[in-house]
Every structure is written in C-alpha cells, then in structure tokens.
C-alpha cells in the first residue's frame, strides 16, 4: 500500500500547441479511492498512463510510496493497471492470464496457485480458470482483468474506464463490486472515468479535469454542494445544472439581479450575504446556477430563484420526471415528482430556495461565494 503524489505533472506531445496535461498536482492518500473524471480529451487517461509508466513525463514528478518513479520502468513501480479494453492475453487461459506477472517474477508455483485461487474466489472466477478469454462474457472478462491486477497485490491499482464496455445493468453491479473490493483490500486506487455517476458513487475523492487542467479536487459532497467553478458545477450532477446569465444592479443599497430583457420571467432574489458577494465581484453580469433537483413547481415563500416557464418536454422516469421548460428562450430542466401532475404546454413557475442558488463569474467561470 502506498500514497501517490503528483507534482506539476505535465505532458506535452510534440506537434500539439497546448499541453495535454498542464501542471497537475494531486495527492492520493494511502488506501484512498480517487476518481479522475472529465470529458474526453481532458488529460485524465494521459495522467494515468504517465503514472503507469506507459508515457514519458515531460516535466514534473510522480511519487509512489515516497519514491520518485519518473525514470523507473512500469514493472518496477509496483502498480497494476486495469485496461479499458481489458487486454487479456487471448492465447492463455484465465488462470494463466492472472498468473502471468507472477510467472515472470519467478514466484514459486504453489504461491502462484494460492494467489490465483484466492483472487478467483473473491471475483467468483473459480469455475472459469481453465477457459480462454474468447469463451467469456464481457463481465467475466472484466473480472479477469481485475483479477490479474489483484493477484499481483500491487501498492496502487490504476483503472482506465474499466466499466465502459459493459452494459448498463452490469455496470451498476460491477461498480458495487469494485467498491466492495476497495473496502476489503483497503488499497490505493486511482480510477479514470468520464462518467460522473461512477465517480460520485465510488470515489472517496474526485479530481475533475478539463482541457489538461485540474478544475477541482474534493469529496463528492464538496463537489456537488460547492463547485469551484461553472465547469465543475455543470459536470457533476445529472441532469446538468441550469445556468442563467443575469445583470447585476448595484445602484441601491441592496444588490439586485435583473434579467437580460426588461420583462424577464426569471427572478432571483438575494440574501444579504449573496448581495455582499456580488457587490464585491467585478463585471456587470453573473451566471446563476440552479440544479434541476432543487427546482420545484410548488410556490415557495422566499424563493431565491423563480422562473415562469412553459413545459415543452416531459421525460417520465417512474418516481419522478424530468421537465424541460422554456423561460426567456432558455431551456430549464427540473426534476419534479411524477405525482405533481404537470402536463406538456402547462405554464408553471419553477422555484428554488436561496441556499441552492450558485453564482459564477461570467468570464472566468469561478464560483462567487
């Protein structure tokens, strides 16, 4: 077991103007489960491959278990990587796939046998040990790939979107299995995914990345409740947070927000605290953010955010439904209780309490608080 520290880790591919990874600083504690999450091309896989030793480091440092491993080959880093494609050796049986690394290390046969058996038990692969990868289902292959990492008992587990090739149901199941596995092994795990739901459900801490830059690093709760910037706010949570541009009116004692047009249907009232924050901020405009799940069709006494909107689309999900409604030409999404009885074409007022309203700087996207 070991911690992982990245210091100013940078990757610049020749021919690209912008670095694929720009000065990434990250500390992963011993036994922690950390998710690197971001849209494709954000540099998360590059970071993982650099830690794995599959990509050269342009600049910066990678430290695993107190030892800088920049110049160590992969095999000496005491890490295991679960590939997105699983990368099982097709000509070897499941047992041989799992023991390949140990065989290379000349571990005694009895020990290999024991390690494979115990990993197979954990992952429910005992009956499949004699099969070849081609004879396995996607989920089974995925478990073999996990088993191959498990058998080696590495200091750090690296996983590169290991669930992306599974169907939705299996993904949920395997997600829980990996969480259990982490709980059981108390191993340091770094998990790359583009799926924020995966990150939210599994991680102790999440690193949200965008365009090669770390946007925010924190627990799922921190990221959800107080996103550092508009990108994180929009990325975490599903459906995505609603954003509305508004004008700051600082004339009076109390700061007021007004809509883009004079007869705007969207109204935001501010608490004193919020008012102070916005008074101090620069610029004449601000981006207001409200999560769909915080919007309600019932009128609130002291609503922070309210919008008179027309319902355009209703997505029924069983217990609740996603409402797409337009207000001032903007598409707002709200998650309402399916019993609310909202119908297509209805005019409703969506409102949210003060403490659920977020403010972001128009230019930088930074959270104002």
């Amino acid at each position, binding site marked *: 077991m070991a911690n992982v520290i990245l210091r100013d880790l940078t990757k610049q591919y020749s021919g690209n103007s912008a670095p694929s990874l720009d000065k990434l600083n990250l500390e992963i504690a011993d036994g922690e489960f950390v998710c690197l999450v971001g849209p494709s091309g954000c540099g998360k896989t590059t970071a993982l491959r650099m830690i*794995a*030793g*599959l990509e050269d480091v342009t600049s910066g440092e990678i430290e695993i278990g107190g030892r800088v491993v920049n110049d160590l*080959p*992969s*095999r000496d880093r005491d*890490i*295991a*990587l679960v*590939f997105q*494609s*699983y*990368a*099982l*050796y*097709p*000509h070897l049986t499941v047992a041989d796939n799992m023991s*390949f*690394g140990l065989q*290379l*290390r000349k571990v005694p046969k009895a020990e290999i046998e024991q390690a494979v058996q115990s990993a197979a038990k954990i992952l429910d692969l005992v009956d499949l040990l004699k099969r*070849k*990868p*081609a*004879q*396995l289902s*996607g989920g089974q*292959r995925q478990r073999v790939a996990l088993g*191959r990492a498990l058998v*080696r008992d590495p200091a750090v587990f690296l996983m590169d979107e290991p669930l992306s*090739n599974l169907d939705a149901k299996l993904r949920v199941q395997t997600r829980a299995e990996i969480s259990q596995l982490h709980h059981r092994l108390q191993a340091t795990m770094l998990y790359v995914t583009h799926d924020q739901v995966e990150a939210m459900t599994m991680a102790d801490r999440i690193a949200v990345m965008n365009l090669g830059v770390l946007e925010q690093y924190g627990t799922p709760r921190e990221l959800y409740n107080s996103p550092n910037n508009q990108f994180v706010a929009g990325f975490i949570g599903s459906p995505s947070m609603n954003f509305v541009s508004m004008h700051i009116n600082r004339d009076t004692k109390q700061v007021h927000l007004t809509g883009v047009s004079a007869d705007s249907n969207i109204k935001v009232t501010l608490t004193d605290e919020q008012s102070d924050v916005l008074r101090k901020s620069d610029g004449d405009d601000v981006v207001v953010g409200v999560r769909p799940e915080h919007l309600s069709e019932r009128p609130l006494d002291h609503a922070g955010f309210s919008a008179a909107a027309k319902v355009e689309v209703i997505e029924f999900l069983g217990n609740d439904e996603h409402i797409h409604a337009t207000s001032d030409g903007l598409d707002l999404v709200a998650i309402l209780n399916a019993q609310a009885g909202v119908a297509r074409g209805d005019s409703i007022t969506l409102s949210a309490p003060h403490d659920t309203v977020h403010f972001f700087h128009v230019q930088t996207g930074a959270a104002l608080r």
Partner: protein
Amino acid sequence: MTTAIETSGPSIPTTEPTKRRHVLRRLLSSRGPSNVVLGIIAILWLVPTVSLIIISLRPEADFSVSGWWKVLFSPTSLTFSNYRVLFGQGFVAGGLLDSLMTSLEITVPATLLVVFFACFAGHSLVFGRWRGRDVVFLTIVGLMVVPVQVALIPVVQFYHELGNLFGLNPYGTIPGVIIFHVAFGLPFGIFLMRNFMSGIPKDLLEAARMEGAGEWKVFYRIVLPLALPALASLAIFQFIWVWNDLLVALVFLGGNAHTPLTIFLYDQNRELQANYWIISTGAIVSVVVPLIVFFSFQRYFVRGVLAGAVK
C-alpha cells in the same frame, strides 16, 4: 415475385413458362444442384493428378502403348515397380532419393531462416521505438516487386566477387542457393508478419510490460503465439516456393552433382524421348512433401486467435 406476375396479368392462371422458371429457381436455390456442379468441377480438377498417379503406377512399357485411362478397365496392371526401381538406387548422386534430400537441404533452412528473420523484423517494425520504421517498411515492400530474374546475374557476379575477396564463393553450393532464397523470401515474409502483428492490440504488450515482461519475453510469450497463423502461412508459402523453384537452382547449381528434385525432373526431358515413368513417379514424390508440410501446419490456421483479447 409470383404475386407480381399474377397482379400484372389480371386473373390469368400461372402459365407454363413461369412454372418452369419457378422450378428452375427452386432448383438453383437449393443446395443439391450446386453441390453437383461443384463436385463435377472438383473431379475435373483432380483428373491431371489422378492421371499422374496412375502413370507412375503403370509399367514403363505400357506408357507408349496405351493411355492411362485404360487402367480403369484393368486395374490389375498397376504396379509399384517404378517406385521400387527409383528408390532402389539409394542415395546415388543424380538419383531420386539424392535429389529429394538436396531439395530438403535447400528448402528447410531457406524456410526456417525466412520465418525466423521475418518474425523479429515484424516485431521491431510494429512495436519497436525507433525512427524511420515506416520508411524501412516501405523500402522492404518496394523490394517485393524486384523480379528474381533481374537479380540472377548480379548475384552470381557478387558471389564470385566474394570468392575473389575472401576465398568463400557461395556459387554452386547449397548455402549459396539458400542465401538467395532467403534474400528473396524476406520482403514478403516481413510484409506479412509486420501487417499481421500490427493487428495485435498494443494494450496486450503494455499489459505484459507492466507485469514485468522485457522486450524478449513480450516477443515470445505474447507476440509470437498470437502471430502463429501468419507464421504458419508464411512457412507454407516459402516452403512451396523454394521447393518448386527450378530457375534459381539451375543458375546456381547447374552442373552440380547434387541437384534438387526440380532439376532431377527437368533432366528427364531427354532430346528424343522423355522418361515419363521417372517424371511421373518423381513428380508424385515431389508433391507429397509439400502436402505433408501443408497439413501439419494447417491446424495453426485457427481463425480468430485474437478473439477475446480486447473488449
């Protein structure tokens, strides 16, 4: 189709020609007739080989008297005497057995060396980390178009030059022929192996490297087993080319006491009369060896060896 016919002519009962077309179509779409046609083609294809076998099994005297198909009416006249005579000579220079051995002496090393070098070259061209791999590969592909005939005389001269400079003239020797075949087999061999290996997912190699495999282990534990189908086909191709080669052997071994089977057979074409009993018997012997090679490597042509590797 039938409905279209019926609706176009209102209430006209199915006419005789359309019914016949119907039957024909059903006949063609079922498997029976196509099997019959294929069977006929297969039999036609086999006629030359079968006739050759029969000729080799008939006494020499019969050949000039009657055609081989006469045997179909009197199968008792077949005999192994031709084989007995040719094999009975033993390993005398210029005999069938000696030529068979010489053919093997040339073909086996020429095949093994090409397979050996092509595997390494393929691995390096696909997975190596050096600049100019593509240029080297394209150059090698370019070499594939050089016809053997163009190179014969320069290579002979080159061999003589080697003799003048180092006292080692490969001309007229079996190693000389082997070197020539290896040199001309390699471009295609490298082409084949490189292209096949480039289909091996890089993830597999990365996984192996992460687990502690060095380049050598990666090569023979991962890449080589996965490239087995390509390797088997390359071995078969190369074996058959070299085995059937007459031109190179004639140029480089002409006049040598030990010659391969192709020259042995060629020499039986005498000016006045060809020794058909020797040609037919020798030809059968020369066919048997490639057949053995083919069938022993055939099991490696397992399709989808890479199935289940990724995804």
